């Protein structure tokens, strides 16, 4: 039911783990629904220098988390904010329709992490 690309990211997730001194952290989803995702980012200037994830969820949830880290790493914050759920699914060669809504949370997680970073930065000023 999943594409080879999804299975590849599920079996060999990229950038899996935590960043202990992350500049921004975004958590989306809910274990009650079966998907919970945390994205950690490290920012240098206006760019995402590093990004990692931890995910509880189905194959699609893990694969989309892995894919978002690949898509976002090295991008400016502005460009990273433009990455959509659709971009993540497209880069994985598509997701089963039933998974498009529930497990395709990675873009939301990334955006939440960036917003967390901006909020912290604003508070410092």
């Amino acid at each position: 039911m999943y594409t080879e690309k999804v299975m590849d990211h599920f079996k060999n997730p990229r950038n899996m783990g935590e960043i202990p001194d992350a500049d921004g952290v975004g958590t989306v989803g809910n274990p009650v629904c079966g998907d919970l995702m945390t994205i950690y980012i490290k920012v240098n200037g206006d760019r995402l220098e590093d990004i990692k994830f931890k995910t509880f969820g189905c194959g699609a949830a893990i694969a989309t988390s892995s894919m978002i880290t690949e898509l976002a790493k090295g991008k400016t914050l502005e460009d990273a904010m433009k990455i959509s759920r659709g971009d993540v699914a497209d880069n994985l060669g598509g997701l089963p329709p039933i998974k498009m809504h529930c497990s395709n949370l990675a873009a939301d997680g990334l955006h939440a992490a960036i917003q967390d970073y901006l909020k912290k930065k604003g508070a410092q000023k």
Partner: protein
Amino acid sequence: MMRRVYMDHTAGKPVDPRVLEAMLPYFSEMFGNPSSLNRWGNEARKAVEDARAKLASLIGAKRSEEIFFTSGGTESNNLTIRGVAYRNKDKGNHIVTTEIEHMSVMNTCKSLLKEGFDLTFVPVDKYGVVNLQALEKAITDKTILVSVMYANGEIGTLQPIKEVGEIVHRKGVLLHVDAVAASGQVPINVENENIDLMSISSNDMYGPRGVGASYIKTGTRVQPIIFGGGQEKGLRSGTENVPAIVGMGKAAEIAKAEMKTEGEMLSNLRDKLIEGLIQNIPRSFLNGHPTKRLPNNANVRFSYIEGESLLLSLDVLGVAASSGSACTSKTLEPSHVLLAIGLKHEEAHGSLLFTLGKQNTEEDVDYVVKALPDIVKRLRSISPLTPKELLS
């Protein structure tokens, strides 16, 4: 070549080669219509009646006329529940069932709500055993039917049907038993166990799909739900699916003869699998009753991870199983059975169901017991819910 281990027998079983062999002549040589008054028809009629007798013998029915063939377990549950409800409307409009029934019972009962019937769902304990006090209390003077499953196909728990029947009969109500997951696996005797109506599936006994049966005790009032030419004594119209019925009969005959040895073999494998998983994987727990369970059922849950990713990882290694996780269901809801035994949503998501079959071996169990700890470890390393002490 990669090892293949099929442990998803509750989803589907292979047809026993002896069953297939018995069925084959009825497709092309003995193709007659059992209702025809000619030798082709007589031949087919004889085969259907022979299968009926084998089913009756398997479940201890007094008379083979108490067996009615249907298209499967779902239709049998529809026929017996709707049929009793419609035919006994003059006596009352209340049906009692449990929180862990199969969807074909659950949704049949719920559909009757729209037709003026009332429902009570009786709770179960943490092992999935029906609460007998609550069951007794639920029965009112309006109750016309109580429906309790013999065994739950998901968590494997067997119900105290005889005791259920005593309570139900003391109140003067009919008892329907969904025995789809249990028939052919564990001994059932409809007479001794106070069963008035029962649903039986064929594939669950290594028979073909597309056929099932309803046991309806003589004198029980049931209205048909399918109308037509009046086959099956008017209770289930439609030309008999003779090859499938023959197959189901043969499957019942084999089940009766081999149930004891097969049950012992399966429960040994089951216990070895359960022990192997629970001992080798921290924070793993058995779902369902430790001893009162189907011989082929091992349902284990693992904290902090989700069932679909477990299934995918197992599939990569050639192992087929099922899960009660929302992510594997069409409704995106976790299994109602796991919620009814008191599991939290996140616990239900991490459940894995292995259902064994007669082709499984000790080596199959060893393979799964060896493979799963690493899978669980890997997924836990990815999960944000895993406590730090489990990650070292």
